[in-house]
């Protein structure tokens, strides 16, 4: 096995090349070679989902891939969702508005899981949202406010009027009766 290989990828729209060890994890490549530390590492065995990034638009666990496997592919990370000083992505904004994050460590993984989910499923129900995030662990929130954030983002993405947003505010009565979890 060669001691180093060249990896050429597009990261958040910009081409970049590095020469790295074949065994370098994609998560370490992103964090330590490219300095994009918004992608977090929580378990390094593919369960917690914190390190989720997009590879050619699909969510992947960057701790379960080697950097060389990204050669010739496009990567997107949380840093690509919103311009540095510009407005937040609608999903990020919804996470803030619904208090969908506490310590924020798992959050980039949730966001990168949800961006393609909402693109494919612009009008998800709560059950679908819960299934979509069931591979991402969060210890702080108990997930309810993350679910709220996703529903809020979906509604905003569909161009709902501001006044309609109230309809998806958490409502204890139906939630208690329904119980989707």
């Amino acid at each position, binding site marked *: 096995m060669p001691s180093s290989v060249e990896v050429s990828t597009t990261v958040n729209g910009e081409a970049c090349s590095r020469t790295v060890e074949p065994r370098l994890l994609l998560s370490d490549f992103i964090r330590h070679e490219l300095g994009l530390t918004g992608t977090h590492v929580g*378990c390094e065995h593919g369960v917690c989902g914190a390190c989720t990034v997009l590879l050619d638009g699909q969510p992947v666990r960057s701790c379960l891939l080697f950097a060389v496997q990204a050669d010739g592919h496009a990567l997107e990370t949380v840093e690509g969702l919103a311009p540095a000083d510009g407005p937040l992505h609608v999903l990020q904004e919804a996470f*803030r508005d619904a208090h969908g994050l506490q*310590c924020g460590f798992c959050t980039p993984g949730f966001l990168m899981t949800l961006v393609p989910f909402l693109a494919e499923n612009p009008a998800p129900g709560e059950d679908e949202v819960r299934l979509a995030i069931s591979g991402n662990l969060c210890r702080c929130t*108990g997930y309810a406010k993350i679910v709220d954030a996703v529903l809020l983002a979906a509604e905003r993405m569909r161009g709902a009027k501001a006044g309609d947003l109230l309809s998806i505010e958490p409502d204890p009565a139906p939630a208690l009766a329904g119980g*989707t*979890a």
Partner: protein
Amino acid sequence: MSGRYVGQSVLRNEDRRLLTGHALFVDDVRLEGMLHAAFVRSDHAHAEIRSIDVSAALEKPGVVAVYTAEDLGDYWRPGPLLVPPPPIEGIVFNQATQVPLAKGRVRHAGEAVVMVVAESRYLAEDAAAEIFVDAEPLEAVVDLERALEPDATVIHPQLGTNLAAHVVQRHGDYDDAKARAAHVVTRRFHYDRGIGGAIENRAVVARWDEQAQELTVWDTTQAPIPIRNGLAGMLGLMQSQVRVIAPFVGGGFGPKIMMFYPEEVLVPWVAMQLGRPVKWCEDRQENFFATTQERAQVHDAEMAVDADGRILGVRDTFIHDCGAYDPYGLTVPINSQCTLLGPYDVPSYEGEFRAVFTNRTTVTPVRGAGRQHGVFVMERLLDLAARLVGIDAAEIRRRNYLVQDDFPHDHKILFQDFQPLVYDSGNYRPALETALELIGWTGWAEEKRRAADEGRRLGIGVVSYVEGTGIGPYEGARVTVEPNGRVRVATGLGTQGQGHYTAFAQIVAEALDVDVADVLVTTGDTREFNWGTGTFASRGAVVAGSACHAAAQQVREKAVGVAARLLNVPESEVELAAGCARVRGEPERSLTLGELAMRANPLRGGVTPGTEPGLECTAYFGPDRGSTASGVHAVVVEVDAETAMAKFLRYVVVHDCGKLINPMLVEGQVEGGVAHGIGNAFFEQLVYDEQGQLMNASFADYLLPTSLDVPRVGMAHRETPAPMNALGLKGVGEAGCIPTGAAFAQALEDALDDYELEVREIPLSPNRLFELLRDAPRRTSPALSETHA
């Protein structure tokens, strides 16, 4: 005080950085020339080390240094005792604190034995794999009762015993109560271990600046100031030469407050030895072995009640598992002993525990910190007593609650803060009634019957708890108005996602009438604030929040004074509004806070003797005692008796944390706590084998609850203000997870009321519940459902 900002669900100031991936976590720190550490950890739970061969590791490329305990010289010493034993009469406490690297003997699997430092983490781990530790296994003491048997191998030979502590606290005469009782319930209860489970593992980075003679340490700690102070002492530096930064921290939940972890002691020392920055980041597997855990206890408990179900007395004798070392003293078992009493009037109580060393990872507080064990025992005893008396679970609680006239209520035993266990305030019965209404208690029999007709088994549970929160000794805060009109707040504790950047900003914004977004809060940087204790015991918002309030009030007074002088009016004529000080009734005569800050710090002219320049004040808050939060949890579960899978259908929390600073943040804390509690009750358990090996040290095998496991939480806030602080605050960080196991147990028994099933252990799992059901005889007639209204 519900105000313009305090009491409002203000969105968080810290979110933008976290959402865009620009927040700094410790593993994000990148320094020129930085080295990376990895540890060789013990394969054995208990063994004598014969020899360590590091020669092959030293030959590996990129390896800079390898350290064993011998290589540490005088720097090797056992860690400090964090919490000394409380002054309880007759107390026995045997101290054995953790060591930086094992010397002679290893006492739990995963204990650090050798530290490797290399040019990259990959190379450090390569080299660690080449190190051979020759060790002779000893009997692993895993079982709590085994630890106390006379022939058990002693884990700390210098102590001559595995007994870490023996404590008896009592009030009243339990034997007399028992003699007078109509019913006595006696049972054994088990609680077992789980993890804190922060998604961010621990990490430490250290840099010694030779020119500045200054050490900077980035640490995922919950308590940066005590870490700074301790490191300075160990390293022979002035405290002012050490700066500890706990930047954004990815969840704490208790284990990140342990002081000192071996890695926290070693990484800064090695950085100084080598003259290069050093980083260590724990991986998830290490986290399962090397980060502290909690919750193993075995209780033998009994409750004496009269014919109406009123408690006459409780006796509880338990064994508490310290793990391999006991650096945190007796905080956890004393919390269990005290919190057992709950919101109830218990005329006589005899609480006794023995803490024991075992060959498992060290125990320190994990969210709840021993409280859930006590609550589980008490609530289970009440459920059993209710059955004997013939009343339902709600009624027996109603009959035993302390009532309004009972406060302050002195339980006449000592709490973890060494102060008498005195409840400052509370109002329990209305919380119960609200919870019953929200969960659907009335009409439950009908709902259950309807479900049964569809072949579904539903069960309901309702339990209460009290949580001592917001304990001392103190926290402080400095509030500064800058010339641009924005306000800086600095406090000494660390923050791990609770929303302190916003909650403290709200408190200061309220006092100064500025926008919350214009208040920038710094926590967890010892350079910014020099004094404090840390984030634990649901105390951050209560104690540091009260200090922020006090400092902001002083700044307010100062601003009014400066404005009065500059506007040439009496102070009583000055009001603060919208970032300005202005003359009452003449809003055009005003100065912005920024202008006042500038004018209060002149380049020429004099600052009046006896005054201080600038609009800045520092204040401290040290409560005599904590404030008593409380609540009621109710749950409906559905159980499949064939698969033993349980599903949480509804969950209700009615809680009272005094005045709310930010209801949205409080909801988040409670929801997260409930999820943690559900994990502890049904999904999470650390499984050790007889050799002390942890069998499920990964997130694939240790199940944190997912979005499919945790229901929405229906919530109602009650606000019984704490009399101990100006804002009426009580803590809420741990409340959500404390009574969850007890509620789940009651609901399971209800759902499975055709089985002779008693749930006397937590955690359960589908596997364990399956075993219990397999062994439980079927009842000839349903027993429990009839007691529900």
